[in-house]
């Protein structure tokens, strides 16, 4: 075969979407291409989009698993609104993703799966390849299944495994299309299959190369794209998901506190990866306790905290609901505890695999009694590390439960992380107390209002705590009316006092102006992208993204007062906007809400902001 001549175009950023049946290896392909792009120095953000069924009926739209990847020479803050390149391994994948591709996008399809049987399953009435559906797109019809099988024919792999290599063929095409080094892809495969499955490793590597060679010769792909390494950035980086970053941030907090980490948890989508990741960390003294239910998860953690471990429980919205009584127990016993809630669509079972920000009110208020907790929200996959660390630090130093909110979008999404030096992270100093001190369990440190922490086993410090109201200082059970009021104010005051230990709210853009966009948590990427785009066009728009929810940063009102209009954007019906109305009722809050189990699109945000500016 003769090599065709081709043109290389340098581009700033490109969005690629992989889509196929769940089971076609779309998540794996996505990760593989992400790692390769990361090694090549590109900035990136990813987002997997998969059904809650493990293997929904093959060939149906319900069973489509997707992985979106945004890679850039410039800074990339979201996985991208619409795709420049779509890989669709069957008609259902095409059907599900047609509305998420740019006009004129390159669509690579596995022509072997495009027949009447699969059209019907996907819900197409006519053959989409012949009815004009794809007019205006650059469609690459590749016999991916057939060529993949042919490539591994002489290797002696079984039929099922041979079929499963097709994702590598599609990937091979992308490596060629974006001028990526196959070496990284091959290393990824070797790591995946290891020495245990040399045959599968060889088969997948061959098919990857076959896809690459195919692309090199096929006429439909005359132009390739080069995404240069990101400029103005240096240091040590890696690709990381929010869940892994959360797990590592917690371990870092334990290390800086010189304590052992105890995780009591029950598997739940999309938080399970944190439990799984920490289960692998025994080498750092991490103890994981997979409890019989959510309630046992948090109560075992409370027990471990009483005994002197850095205690954590991880869950999603339905699990937090089950844990709520025990969160109150941690509040009244004033024990450190980090509760991670990886939010998903609700109520009840809701949308297990889709992101939402609808647990905010639950985190703030979802308990019996006056039950204040510190509430913190991470805002990018990588900064889950920082906020998990800070959750641990605040919890341990202030003797309070901290609820850390992330969401399915952050948890499964990934981006490049500028790796910190653990030894340079701040020290964590819990209010431990020496043996045989004069000890009153509810006597407080003046600066933090935290009570001191005596551990079972310590001499001369025996004491009892529990869920009944306690007398101030002595900790003796008390039903005294004025004592209860005093303790209620003390618990609230202790949490509010954390405001003196957190940074001020920062504004991205001008300090004052027409419109302040307000967000919290996982919407940061979309909001900052929209705001930056508008700022480049000279619009007077700034962004304030909140990570500290309770308490709110000290300068919140001051920041708000410098803008003519405020719009609060959330993936819910307006929970943060309502919370701000409680905390700072002097301002008028406009709202932009979306509740479709989907992240914000940059374009819809810009439309909304422009509309507000023109009003």
């Amino acid at each position, binding site marked *: 075969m003769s090599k065709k001549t081709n043109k290389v175009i340098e581009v700033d950023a490109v969005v690629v979407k992989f889509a196929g049946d769940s089971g076609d290896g779309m998540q794996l392909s996505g990760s593989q291409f992400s790692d390769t792009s990361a090694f090549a120095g590109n900035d990136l953000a990813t987002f997997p989009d998969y059904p809650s069924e493990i293997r929904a009926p093959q060939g149906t739209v319900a069973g489509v698993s997707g992985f979106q990847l945004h890679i850039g020479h410039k800074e990339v803050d979201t996985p991208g609104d619409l795709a420049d390149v779509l890989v669709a391994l069957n008609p259902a994948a095409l059907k599900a993703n047609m509305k998420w591709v740019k006009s004129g996008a390159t669509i690579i399809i596995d022509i072997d799966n495009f027949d009447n049987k699969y059209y019907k399953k996907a819900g197409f009435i006519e053959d989409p390849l012949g009815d004009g559906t794809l007019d205006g797109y650059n469609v690459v019809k590749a016999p991916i299944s057939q060529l993949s099988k042919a490539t591994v024919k002489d290797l002696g792999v079984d039929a099922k495994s041979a079929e499963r290599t097709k994702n590598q063929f599609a990937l091979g095409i992308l490596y060629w299309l974006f001028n990526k080094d196959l070496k990284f892809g091959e290393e990824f495969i070797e790591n995946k299959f290891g020495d245990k499955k040399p045959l599968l490793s060889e088969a997948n590597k061959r098919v990857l190369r076959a896809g690459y060679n195919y692309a090199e010769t096929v006429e439909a792909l005359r132009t390739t794209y080069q995404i*240069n390494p990101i400029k103005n950035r*240096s240091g040590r980086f890696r690709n990381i998901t929010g869940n892994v970053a959360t797990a590592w941030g917690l371990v870092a907090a334990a290390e800086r506190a010189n304590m052992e980490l105890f995780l009591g948890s029950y598997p739940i989508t999309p938080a399970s990866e944190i439990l799984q990741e920490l289960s692998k960390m025994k080498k750092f003294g991490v103890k994981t306790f997979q409890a019989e239910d959510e309630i046992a998860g948090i109560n075992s953690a409370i027990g471990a*905290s009483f005994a002197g471990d850095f205690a954590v429980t991880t869950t999603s919205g339905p699990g937090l609901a089950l844990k709520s009584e025990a969160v109150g*127990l941690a509040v009244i016993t004033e024990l450190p505890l980090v509760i991670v809630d990886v939010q998903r669509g609700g109520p009840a079972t809701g949308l297990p695999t889709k992101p939402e920000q609808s647990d905010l009110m639950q985190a703030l208020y979802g308990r019996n009694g006056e039950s204040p907790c510190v509430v913190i929200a991470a805002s990018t996959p990588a900064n889950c590390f920082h906020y998990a660390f800070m959750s641990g630090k605040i919890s341990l130093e202030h003797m309070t439960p901290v609820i850390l909110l992330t969401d399915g979008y952050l948890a499964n999404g990934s981006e490049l992380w500028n*790796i910190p030096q653990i030894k340079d992270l701040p020290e964590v100093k819990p209010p431990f107390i020496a043996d045989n001190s004069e000890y009153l369990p509810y006597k407080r440190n003046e600066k933090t209002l935290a009570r001191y922490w005596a551990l*079972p086993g310590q*001499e001369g410090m*025996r004491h*009892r705590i*529990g869920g009944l109201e306690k007398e101030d200082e002595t900790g003796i059970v008390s039903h005294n009316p004025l004592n209860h009021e005093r303790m209620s104010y003390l618990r609230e005051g202790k949490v509010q006092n954390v405001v003196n230990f957190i940074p001020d709210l920062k504004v991205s853009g001008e300090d004052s102006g027409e419109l302040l966009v307000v967000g919290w948590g996982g919407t940061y990427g979309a909001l900052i992208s929209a705001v930056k785009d508008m700022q480049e066009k000279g619009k007077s728009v700034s962004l304030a993204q909140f990570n500290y929810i309770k308490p709110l940063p000290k300068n919140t009102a001051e920041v708000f007062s410098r803008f003519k209009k405020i719009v609060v954007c959330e993936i819910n019906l307006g929970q943060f906007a309502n919370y701000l109305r409680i905390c700072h009722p002097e301002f008028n809050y406009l709202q932009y809400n979306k509740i479709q189990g989907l992240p914000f699109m940059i374009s819809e945000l810009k439309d909304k902001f422009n509309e507000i500016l023109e009003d």
Partner: protein
Amino acid sequence: MAEEIKTEQLQNTKADFKSDQVVKWCAGCGDFAILSAIQSALVESNVKKEDVVFVSGIGCSSRFPYYMNTYGFHGLHGRGAVIASGIKVANPKLDVWHITGDGDSMAIGGNHFIHLVRRNIDMNVILFNNKIYGLTKGQYSPTTPKGSITKTSPEGTIENPFKPGELAMGAQGTFFARVVDTEPKRMKEVFLEATKHRGTSVVEVLQNCVIFNNRIHSEITGKDVRDDHQIHLKHGKPMIFGKEKDKGLILKGSRFEVVKIGENGISEEDILVHDAHNPDDTTHYMLVRMTLPEYPVATGVIRSCECTNTYEAELEFQVKRAMEKSDMNSLQELIEEKSFVVEKSTKN
């Protein structure tokens, strides 16, 4: 060195374990005797006061930790078992006691009870079984006999009761004992046995609620009937009972049968010998299920088997092995895996 510390006599007295709080149970409550027996057992078990932790859920019995001058945690309804599990796993050196009742551990905490037993975490579970809800004033519990009239069953309960021992056996329990609250010396002995056992030791105390279920156990505990209605089991001893020590258990087919020694050619040698240490729990299960009037109610240590390791010991082992085997010395090394260095790019 460690051995020396172990054998040193600590000279604790019962008073050392009494807290300064007024005990607020009803006059005549069986809980007083249990409190006293546990304090006596602790003196004899020679444990450091600082290492003892009492954990409870909710209910009359669950006020227990406040009355002990040890570390204590009064938890949530039904959740004492998991709080105690967290404490023991976090610090396996502690001597952990979980105080619970039939509502706390058989109803709202039933799930935690079976999972605790299944995991075999080393602690003593003292289950105060008065077959009624006391603190909420007289509703039926999961151990209330079928047909009982209570505040929530004016026409009699229509539920079959649990026997805690059946659940313990069903969850592969390694230690189960039953005692009555009217026999302080036997209680203390059984609690001591429970502390010696490595694993979850469940002790069901048939406890009298003087207000809402008075005399519920009197058929078992009454002075005039107890010798004939209880069989107090001891490992290695024949299963003999009765005022005259003339009755015993034999196996007929797959069932126990009560026989009289000296009648129908039965001699003491024919009576079954109690083997509490047998890993096979079939006989223990049968003993736990015995009910009046066909059988005496089994008390004493019914099962005590060192047949599996404890959860916290296995976890400690895995952590230690992982630390030894790992070629990774720090979290820094882990987070830098698969990382790469980006030099400042000059391309625009």
